[in-house]
């Protein structure tokens, strides 16, 4: 008997060989019990004397207390940045500015392991991602923009680019260190000084970055980091000496900021929400498309503004693709972010888990068919099973609204025209994915999808050389690449 027919045709991924726990050690990290703000080259206590606690979302244990910034702290930080701009940074030869950026990039690499572990502890993302993606990309952004510092005239031929002054930057909790790098590196390369406000749920790698910046010898006041909540952000946005605001975060807050800066002359870039279409045609390499769908929606627990959260599958291959997708999800390991084999870590905060749970309930109410894998998830901490909603409709709210979690809606389509219309029929326009073996179809779609980034036969691929940004309610302005320089210059 050389071949076996089995009555039930299924694959079993949960029995047999079990991977032993492979936790990344956290013995080597150094975290203070208390962090204030980083202003004018030193760590200072908050003016209010008040602190809040940053928790590890995978076990709800406190990690450190962090200063609760208010308008007084912001004022102090902006003044330090203004002074540093006028007296030091603006006048410094551009090549010298570049040297500081190179030094920061190298120091991020040297401390990569510590940064990765803290990023995973503070934010819940798997160590595989913080180690292989977040931290290396953060260093890459500093390296990339370091190179531009003394070549700005070549970026904009025939112009004389000038820095703006003090840039106020507000970043989200999904990629804390990487977003800090995206913001700080181009601002400094262009000759601006910076006041950065990290997200309140993930301030710790920004504090480690502050240590790196201090140790790099960057002149005091060139980079200032003030912790706090929305009110601290508002104080930064409304400060009269801030020349430019760069914000990455929710569309709701983006709209408030846009109103606040209207008529002030402050330059503004917004990188907001998304609800990307990931489109699989029937001629696509299906097994590889499955991998792209997984990377698209389960990368960083789906806390990604460009996540491929709406899957469109051409009807001829829908059953096959969905079966492959389910099998692949069965092999995803949800659990301890510090375990090197974890694929999906902890949801960033209790609030976010509640929001995701609300949408999962809503999807069921709306009549989409929910599917989750059979594996266990930890009982403590904030965890969510990877979730599919099959047979979703364009008018379901789970299809229209950004969930920002590991939840994928699946719709089928028949023709190219239909899928273009449905992909664009959303208030957002940050990113999209196209899977097909046909090159001409890729070019046809990239021209017609109203999204800032369109990935073809790949997804969630980032490089400092490539500009990133949105259409419509996903914001405006571009970060990364030559285009990312324009936001920080008078051209």
């Amino acid at each position, binding site marked *: 008997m050389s071949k076996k027919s089995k009555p039930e045709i299924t694959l079993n*991924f949960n029995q047999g*060989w079990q*991977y*032993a726990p*492979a936790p990344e050690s956290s013995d080597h990290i150094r975290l203070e019990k208390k962090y204030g703000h980083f202003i004018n080259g030193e760590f200072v206590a908050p003016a209010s004397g008040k602190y809040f606690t940053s928790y590890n979302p995978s076990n709800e244990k406190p990690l450190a207390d962090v200063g609760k910034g208010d308008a007084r702290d912001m004022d102090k930080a902006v003044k330090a940045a203004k002074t540093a701009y006028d007296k030091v940074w603006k006048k410094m030869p551009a090549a010298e500015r570049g040297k500081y950026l190179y030094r920061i990039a190298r120091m991020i690499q040297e401390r990569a392991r510590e940064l990765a572990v803290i990023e995973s502890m503070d934010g819940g993302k798997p160590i595989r991602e913080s180690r292989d993606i977040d931290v290396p990309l953060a260093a890459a952004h500093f390296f990339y923009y370091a190179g531009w510092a003394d070549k700005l005239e070549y970026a904009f031929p025939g112009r004389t680019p000038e820095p703006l002054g003090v840039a106020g930057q507000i970043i989200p909790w999904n990629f804390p260190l990487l977003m800090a790098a995206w913001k700080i590196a181009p601002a400094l390369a262009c000759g601006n000084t910076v006041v950065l406000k990290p997200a309140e749920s993930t301030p710790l790698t920004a504090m480690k970055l502050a240590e790196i910046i201090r140790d790099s010898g960057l002149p005091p006041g060139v980079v200032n980091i003030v912790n706090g909540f929305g009110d601290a952000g508002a104080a930064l946005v409304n400060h009269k000496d801030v020349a430019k605001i760069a914000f990455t975060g929710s569309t709701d807050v983006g709209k408030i900021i846009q109103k606040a800066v209207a008529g002030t002359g402050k330059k503004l870039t917004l990188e907001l929400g998304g609800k990307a279409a990931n489109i699989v045609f029937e001629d696509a*390499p299906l097994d590889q498309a499955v991998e792209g769908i997984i990377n698209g929606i389960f990368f960083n627990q789906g806390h990604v503004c460009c996540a491929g959260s709406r899957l469109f599958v051409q009807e001829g291959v829908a059953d096959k693709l969905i079966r492959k997708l389910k099998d692949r999800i069965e*092999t995803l390991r949800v659990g301890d972010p510090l375990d090197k084999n974890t694929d999906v870590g902890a949801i960033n905060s209790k609030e976010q888990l509640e929001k995701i749970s609300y949408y999962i309930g809503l999807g069921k109410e709306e009549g989409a068919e929910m599917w989750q894998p059979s594996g266990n998830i930890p009982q403590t901490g904030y965890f969510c099973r990877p979730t599919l909603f099959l047979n979703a409709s364009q008018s379901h709210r789970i299809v229209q609204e950004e969930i920002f979690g590991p939840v994928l809606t699946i719709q089928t389509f028949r023709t190219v025209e239909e899928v273009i219309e449905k992909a664009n029929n959303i208030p957002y326009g940050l990113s999209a994915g196209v899977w097909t*073996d046909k090159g001409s179809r890729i070019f046809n779609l990239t021209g017609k999808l109203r999204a800032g980034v369109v990935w073809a036969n*790949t997804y969630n691929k980032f490089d400092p050389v490539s500009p990133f940004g949105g259409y419509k309610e996903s914001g405006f302005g571009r970060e990364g690449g030559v285009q990312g320089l324009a936001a920080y210059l008078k051209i």
Partner: protein
Amino acid sequence: MKKIDFTQTPVIDQVSVEERVARLNTRSIKKSAKVEGLKLALNLIDLTTLEGKDTAGKVKQMCYKAMHPHDELPGLPTVAAVCVYPTFVGLAKKELGDSGVKVASVATAFPSGQSTRQIKIEDTKFAVSEGADEVDMVISRGEFLVGNYNYVFDEIAEVKEACGKARLKVILETGELSTLDNVRRASEIAMRAGADFIKTSTGKIQPAATQPVTLVMLEAIRDYYYETGIMIGMKPAGGISTAKSALNYLVMVHETLGNAWMNNEWFRFGASSLANDILMQLAKEAKGVYQGGDYFSKD
């Protein structure tokens, strides 16, 4: 079964396959998982000698090693099979006795496959008559590359018939097939023509087994299983010489086909030097220190 058009087999994106392999290789296999995986890997090996200079003495020594990989460490499994040329099948069969270790024989004008159909069939029948439990055949790569898919299909089907009860492993020689699309296509032809196993390489052509090629073949097996309910075995061969890379392959099987394939009925490594590296790692796990190469018999 419906007629298959082999010009229309699924397309493969090479870049994404390589990325998937890289991600699978980030799996950290430690402690109990490592020991369990290494023992399994040892039990999956087709211990192989396929040289012009092979002799009865060489084959005898290898057979003993197959049954007794390292008696100093208790509780080790045997390897799965020994793999030899047809002329050594009878000898290997006798040496291995009732140990449970199978005898696999290459056939069909191995390794080039450049001979007549008749000779290939005779070659197969001889190996089987000598007692081979398994036959490792090569496909006609030339015919495949000129698009003569039916020729390749028919040849495999005829060899399968000549195998009788012996299980047939079909070597695609992926190092000569150039693209992953071709690997997928050749896998489809082999499975549908009656292969019990599909195998990457003869070991005589570089590159031999690679992880991307193996992943594409595992995915072909998966699709075929879902389509027909029939399980096909997989054998990467050549170039897998370290315990670590064996574990990487096991992770790939585990996460592509699941638990049902994690045994030597459905997965094999074609290798000669892999066994000793696995033994070295297992000895290290047991004793806490690495021993030099001369502490492990080289047969």
